[in-house]
């Protein structure tokens, strides 16, 4: 498997008042194509900071970020934007849909930015919404949808351009357990199709779905473990279909 994303000595320090606060203190991380990596850790450990740096939404104080063999942490905002639209997709905890556009238009946005024409973009967007089970909401306003539905729209938007990497920052953090389960199922489906995923989460169930769990504490990686293949489980109260 090839290396898709690599962080070397990633550091982010905030100058607040007297003493600078290190949110990340030298993180090395490698993500291969097709991997599902979960980042866990107590709040304040630097999960979101790490994701923001890897996504180009923030600039590191020190260290390097390499995407597919080229260095990206020094690119201009404009170049980063162009990179993001083609190669990255985001899912945020609070959905971050644009409220003045319809659901379908939110999903069409990255497609249009990547150069697709209006009608093909609309078709693709609607197809994705159908696949995610919310095709009937295509012309609704985001505010009219439930949390779980909004997150599915966000996921559709993230997957629209078939990006190299989908980054999720607490994607189930704002959902009830039923919706969280649905979204997790969709992430699993995407992963099964070969999508590389990097998800920061405090939901153990999301982490359990990943191939690899990276634990951060105080801005440093303390554990980086692959999970093993699942073992079979016999469930009581379960009639044997055979």
């Amino acid at each position, binding site marked *: 498997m090839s290396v898709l994303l690599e962080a070397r000595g990633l550091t982010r320090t905030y100058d607040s008042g007297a003493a600078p606060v290190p949110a990340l203190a030298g993180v090395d991380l490698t993500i291969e194509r097709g991997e599902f990596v979960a980042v866990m850790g107590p709040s304040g450990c630097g999960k979101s900071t790490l994701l923001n740096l890897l996504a180009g939404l923030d600039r590191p104080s020190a260290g390097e970020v390499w995407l597919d063999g080229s260095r990206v942490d020094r690119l201009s*905002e404009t170049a980063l934007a*162009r990179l993001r639209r083609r190669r990255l997709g985001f899912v945020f905890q609070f959905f971050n849909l644009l409220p003045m556009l319809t659901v379908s238009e939110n999903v069409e946005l990255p497609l*249009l930015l990547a150069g697709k024409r209006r009608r093909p973009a609309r078709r693709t967007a609607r197809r994705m919404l159908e696949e995610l089970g919310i095709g009937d909401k295509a012309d609704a306003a985001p505010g009219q949808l439930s949390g779980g539905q909004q997150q599915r729209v966000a996921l559709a938007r993230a997957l629209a351009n078939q990006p190299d990497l989908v980054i999720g920052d607490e994607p189930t953090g704002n959902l009830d357990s039923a919706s969280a389960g649905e979204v997790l199922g969709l992430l699993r489906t995407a992963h099964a199709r070969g999508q590389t995923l990097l998800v920061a989460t405090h939901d153990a169930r999301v982490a359990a779905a990943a191939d690899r769990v990276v634990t951060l504490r105080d801005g440093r990686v303390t554990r980086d473990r692959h999970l093993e293949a699942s073992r079979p489980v016999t469930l009581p109260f379960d009639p044997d279909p055979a």
Partner: protein
Amino acid sequence: MTRTLVRLAFAGLRSRLLATALTVLLAGAATTTLVLVLEVRETGRDPWQRTFEAAHGAHVLANVPTSAAAQALRALDGVTESDDPVPETTIELTTSRSSEPLRVRGVSGRPAVNTPIATSGTADPGDGVVLERSMARALGLTAGDRLRLSGPGGEQEVVVAGTAIVPSQSRYPRANPGIGWVALSTMERLQPDQSAWRWAEALRVRDPASARFVADSVLAGAAPGTVSVQTWQEQRDDALKDAQPLQLILSMYTLILLAVVFAVVGILVGARVLEQNREIGLLKAVGLTPAQVTAVFVIESATLGLVATVLGYAAGTALAPRLAGAMAETMIEPPATAADPAHLLVAGLPVLLVLVLSTWAAARRRTRASVLNALQSRQALPHHRSLLARVARALPLGVPLHVGIRSLLAGRARVVLLTASISLTGSAIVFALSMQAALDDRPAGEPSDVPVELPALVYTLDGVLLLVALTALVAIALLSVRERLHDFGILKAVGLTPRQVASTLVSPFAVLAGLAGVVSVPLGLALYVAVYAAAGGEGDPVVAPWSWLLAVPVGTVLLVLLATTVPARVATRSPAVEALRLE
């Protein structure tokens, strides 16, 4: 409870200084304008009355062919006072620049009735001439200047002994020819043929209200067409007509300025309430009823309004005398007016009402929304199904423009108010351009019908309007940026470049400005034609040429680009993560 509400209100004001200051400034400007209108209107009548008193004016002024006929009028029923008839004739006045007809009155000593009042130099012509003040100003003459008078009897070089005003003569060149006073001997020399003279007889009557009857009896006693009579009421109305174009234009600009100011205040107030959306949710969660939350905002606005109206009133009363003086060309300068406290009420009340009502309307809408709604959402539900949104969707607009227009449409009241403000300002510019074109159209040397201060006044008022509009635009741009900061973060995350993100703010404003600018052209032309007709202009007015008119929409777009580009660029320069952190 009330004290808590008041304290909350003041905290709110402190936290948003820019918008607060701007609201006070604009509301103050509106109050000043209203105060000016009120004060100037009152001082309009007064100067003429004072001039009439000071000049011992003629209740009835008759113009007859012979001295004997004039003398006969002095015995009419009801006449209490009169003096010897004053001869007048028309000669030519020549300066280094031009040559004009001049109607001179031959005086020997001061007439008892309808006495000219000296405004510079002396009212006694001596060997020279005393010119009526507005004519002297129009021709650029002052006391001491030399000019040539010429008539059938010969020419004479004379010195301007002074300028004077008289209640029976209105402004030159509307009253054409202008008048002047010379010594009787000078007049005899210039026009020896006394049969060409006319005689003016100034009469004062016992009952001024009956002046019309006396005038009618003058006409009755003479052959038709040989005699002309003017009552004091007609003199007054004629004199006040001088002020009419100015007053019309002032009224028009007042209305435009008030409309623009109120529109902008409406926008600022709406934005303020919008920004406080989360605060509203928190206040309600803490236990305030919707009515109490609305009350907090209303108290804020009322406070602002009070401060603004007091300041505006002070400015207005300070400026009023200067403005009134400009309009009293043919009358005595009005004395320093004591500030009328009633005007504070009359001017302040509409401004206060506009502030309070627009706040109340905006706040009520927001506080009615559920607590959760206010805490979670930042904007009103967009109107996807509105006609404009559908038009925007159908057109092949680029991504930034489309996103920007949809953002703009989410606040439709603001769009309407902004378009109205820009259109009105543009129409005032069109008005000024048309006026300038009319002035330019006159043949050189001919003194214009238009009072001298009018262009200066119009340009000054246009300048004020432009300043207000520009300031408002910058403020609204800054407000919009602040409101959309979170959306900017999302757009950046999705992959819009910083320039594209800035464009989502700037381009819809530019489109709006272009449309509003185009609308302002017919609007301004209509205004100009209407004012021209109302001011008694004859025929088809000359309007600004197409090339000038084109400059208005173009200029509007450029100005709006100027106002919005810098705030947008600054906002989009920060990394996306900062914007996304806001909620």
